[in-house]
């Protein structure tokens, strides 16, 4: 039978009716909709038992609690009850799982193949990788060039940095370098003025009048969460009880925005303002007489043993820093200076804090001293709500290093950066200075460089000079967990586990006034083929043998850690931290280990160290005008790099979540915005979003203009933390690295970088 058209229709009708009366269409519709709601490429997170594990963040020293589902870490939260942060969390730590599990990790030991920085690597075994380092180091040592080995680390506190330092000592090199931070200057100021070998501690929680000289307290100065928590304390209670925050800064930063008063002053004149305030306080006799008269040295004029007259801080300040004089320097009216000084001196528990931005840069020693002198004037040293030195929880000391001839000679050689030499006897590290020195010599000054928890290739000022200096180092080893710029330009990467995968001690976070020792512990199993840097150093030392090996009597890093903590280990392991909550800084009578036994306005140590002192001025806090690099005629504007809370600008790149939180006035596609006052913009015919060429004596970059009333006319601000070339597309290629636009302005007395800006010009593109 032939099925004609009509027949087919009849059949179809039947089929249709049948299908309709069968479950097929209805069930298929349902299944189809379920299918479209559950695409196979949409991840379905696995469920499992939920556990919580405590550890400590290596970013900010906050206690954190990881929420784990099965063996996966799914969330980082602030640990409740932890002394530093009590439940709060910093933005970068909150995004840390993106770094732990992300593609930025170095998957295993890598050896460079092809040109340096080309990104071509071969996977090698740990055996071979360590073998390469041992080979190189033992060759250098045999040739008597042990002092040409240098280490750059992000910190010198805690067991791992101490292992590196010990290694250099046993191996025979003086070149342990710590990357720049406000600690560089603070340690110097505290050791000179107070005779304390430690950085500064601020009792911010109990302070009632906080006078901040450009300190990015809210941006992440010290331990981010802790300072923000302190800010909330200032904002609690009745309006009358609330603390006052005064911010001195040319730009309306987050800190300035949160301040009760914001005083924009000419950039780089903070020291002058501090001295101007001192002038008013002294003139009006508002200073703490007991402290100043009985516990300080060099306030009044004095005569030394040889009968020479010296001028005191009082006379200097009264003579040179009248409100009118300071007003001319800072741009702040004399009336305001007087008002500010009076308010500060009369306030209950005033405190003056120093350290530009997040505290990732060093600065002028005299400026730091001038600010600290204010604290002395109001007598808040070692007081509640005042300033003291950063204490540490006491741990066991290691056996002395038994140096052989090479080690002794090597360690006795001058440091590569010039720190501790005759010119800068008190400075410990000059992290911004070594590239110039390396570039300035024909001979190869650094034969091997080991970098741990630092990214000097990215964070050191004057990127072009840094790149040249790296090119001159034949052997660069990075211990980096992440593929940062230094790792990218290294010859060998020996990846350290992420801090969520390893044991380590976390010393007291910068700025804290109570000794705390935190325990970093592995909370997830190692995700990649990594090895603890502490263990790697032990292995290298043992393989080198001789005195180097003997200096490391420990089996492995965990033994080092346990033995260093000693009796307190069980407490530390159980609680996750040790807090010496009842610690109080020593009373004034025993507080100062200076030559005079007092707080020194006049630094006696300079002369004792054999430094050439021509004028009393050199030993007193004073203001030295520091002109930013560049010719004002060519570069009429002043560029200041600024730090943003949501943009990490240190050794660890900004995670994708944090990149997302940047404002639309900070980054647009890959272009960075600079902040320009509308008045400045009008002068150069710039409008919002204008494509502009920013040029400084050190480099140039294409940027976009954001008009912001919160920036001083004539000054332009550029955020730090962008312009990465390593990592991946979530971070690399966005914006500019401010260091590529900056040079190094050296502080004459300390040799540290006192760079706060550079001259610049803007041209429309």
């Amino acid at each position, binding site marked *: 039978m032939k099925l004609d058209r009509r027949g087919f229709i009849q059949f179809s009708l039947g089929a249709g009716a049948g299908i309709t009366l069968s479950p097929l269409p209805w069930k298929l519709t349902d299944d189809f909709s379920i299918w479209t709601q559950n695409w196979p490429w*949409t991840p379905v997170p696995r469920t499992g038992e939920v556990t919580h594990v405590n550890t400590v963040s290596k970013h900010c020293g906050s206690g954190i609690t990881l929420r784990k589902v099965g063996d996966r*870490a799914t969330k980082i939260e602030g640990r409740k009850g932890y002394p530093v942060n009590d439940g709060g969390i910093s933005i970068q730590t909150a995004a840390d799982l993106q770094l732990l*599990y992300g593609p930025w990790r170095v998957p295993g030991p890598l050896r460079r193949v092809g040109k340096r920085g080309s990104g071509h690597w071969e996977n090698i075994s740990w055996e071979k990788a360590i073998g390469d380092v041992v080979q190189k180091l033992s060759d250098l040592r045999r040739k008597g060039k042990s002092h040409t080995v240098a280490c750059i680390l992000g910190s010198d506190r805690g067991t791992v940095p101490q292992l590196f330092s010990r290694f250099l000592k046993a191996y025979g090199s003086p070149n342990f370098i710590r990357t720049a931070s406000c600690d560089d200057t603070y340690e110097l100021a505290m050791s000179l003025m107070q005779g304390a070998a430690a950085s500064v501690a601020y009792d911010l929680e109990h302070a009632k009048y906080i006078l901040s000289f450009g300190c990015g307290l809210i941006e992440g100065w010290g331990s981010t969460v802790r300072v923000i928590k302190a*800010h*909330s304390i200032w904002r609690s209670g009745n309006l009358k009880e609330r603390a006052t925050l005064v911010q001195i800064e040319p730009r309306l930063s987050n800190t300035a925005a949160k301040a009760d008063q914001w005083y924009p002053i000419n950039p780089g004149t903070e020291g002058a303002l501090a001295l101007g305030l001192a002038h008013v306080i002294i003139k009006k006799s508002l200073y703490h007489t007991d402290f100043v008269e009985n516990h300080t040295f060099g306030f009044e004029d004095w005569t030394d043993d040889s009968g020479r007259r010296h001028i005191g801080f009082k006379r200097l300040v009264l003579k040179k820093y009248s409100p009118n004089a300071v007003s001319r320097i800072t741009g702040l009216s004399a009336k305001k200076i007087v008002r500010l000084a009076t308010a500060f001196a009369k306030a209950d528990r005033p405190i003056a804090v120093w350290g530009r931005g997040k505290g990732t840069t060093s600065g002028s020693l005299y400026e730091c001293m001038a600010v600290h002198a204010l604290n002395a004037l109001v007598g808040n040293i070692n007081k509640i709500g005042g300033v003291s030195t950063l204490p540490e929880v006491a741990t066991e000391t290691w056996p002395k290093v038994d140096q052989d001839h090479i080690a002794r000679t090597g360690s006795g050689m001058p440091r590569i950066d010039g720190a501790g030499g005759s010119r800068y006897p008190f400075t410990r590290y000059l992290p911004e200075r070594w590239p110039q020195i390396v570039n300035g010599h024909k001979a190869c000054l650094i034969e091997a460089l080991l970098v741990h928890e630092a990214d000097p290739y990215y964070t050191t000022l004057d990127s072009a000079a840094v790149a040249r200096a790296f090119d001159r180092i034949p052997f660069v080893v990075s211990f980096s967990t992440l593929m940062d710029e230094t790792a990218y330009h290294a010859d060998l990467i020996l990846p350290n586990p992420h801090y969520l995968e390893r044991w380590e001690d976390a010393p007291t976070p910068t700025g804290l006034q109570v000794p705390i020792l935190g325990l970093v512990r592995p909370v997830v199993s190692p995700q990649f083929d990594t090895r603890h840097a502490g263990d790697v150093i032990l292995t290298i030392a043992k393989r080198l043998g001789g005195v180097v090996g003997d200096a490391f009597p420990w089996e492995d890093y965990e033994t080092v850690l346990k033995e260093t903590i000693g009796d307190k280990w069980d407490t530390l392991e159980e609680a996750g931290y040790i807090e010496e909550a009842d610690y109080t800084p020593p009373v004034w009578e025993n507080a100062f280990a200076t030559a005079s036994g007092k707080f020194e306005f006049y630094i006696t140590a300079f002369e004792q160290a054999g430094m050439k002192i021509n004028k009393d001025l050199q030993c007193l806090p004073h203001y030295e005008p520091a002109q930013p690099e560049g010719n004002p005629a060519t570069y009429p504007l002043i560029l200041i790099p600024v730090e943003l809370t949501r943009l990490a600008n240190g050794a660890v790149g900004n995670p994708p979540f944090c990149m997302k939180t940047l404002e639309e006035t900070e980054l647009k596609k890959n272009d960075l915005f600079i902040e320009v006052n509308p008045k400045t913009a009008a002068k150069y015919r710039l409008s919002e979003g204008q494509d502009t060429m920013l040029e400084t004596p050190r480099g140039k970059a294409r940027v976009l203009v954001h008009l912001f009333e919160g920036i001083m006319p004539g000054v332009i601000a550029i955020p730090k933390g962008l312009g990465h070339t390593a990592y991946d597309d*979530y971070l690399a290629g966005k914006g500019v690295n401010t260091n590529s636009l900056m040079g190094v302005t050296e502080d004459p007395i300390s040799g540290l970088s006192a760079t706060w800006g550079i001259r610049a010009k803007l041209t429309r593109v």
Partner: protein
Amino acid sequence: MKEEHGHRPGKKTYKYGMVIDLDKCTGCGACMVACMAENNISFRKDETNKLVSNFWMRVYKITNGRSFPDTDVCYIPRPCMHCEGHGHHHHTPCVSVCPACATDYDHETGIVSQIYTRCFGCRYCMAACPYHARVFNWWDPSWPKGMEKYLSPDVSPRMRGVVEKCTFCHHRLQRARNKTYSEGRREIREDEYQTACTQACPAGAITFGDLKNPEHKVHKLVEEGKKKKIAFRLLEKLGTNPKVYYVSTKDWVQKAADVYLGEEGKPVTHA
């Protein structure tokens, strides 16, 4: 197509809400990241176009519009307001326009839901929401290799073409319920249910709890703030009756709160 649930006589009801202290908020952004990490929020290589960027909690920056040096800046964290609306009809703007019943107002909790598998992406709700609290998935969320390991099983990852928004971390309420039920209780204690942003905020600027419960901190803060005339809500005049209160001692901030959004996606300036 109004979908409202939970009018059940005799049942204990909650009215979860938030008080955000703008004097304490520092604009650090920890709430935003904590929210993203908690709620499996996707991210892309370029997130600079804020019109299509996925935020449940977003911190806006507003300025007082005055020139240097009288400029001032304030940060305003903005979660979903979980609008209750007024009167019998409870006019929650987004709920009232959803043609798919993909969002509802739960009278037992006061939380506005969003069901991703039900949503078909018409975005009426986004148009209706005066707070820009809702975001659309223009792309299929994807995670760089390895990163999907941190995804939480408590929040369902979304797909392209659906709208999402802040849920007051509703899964944490579910978690708290699990715990109370297994202990034979029904009442959820204040500390048992807190949102991720509240917990993360280093400043302690966010307070979360039951607005109806006089024992809860939020209740006290709202009462106190009203008395001192420092508490307000965003776009109060629209009558959306939001459950997120703000506290600021700055006059200009209080004034700006009624018109704070400005032109879409553009930085906001107020005189």
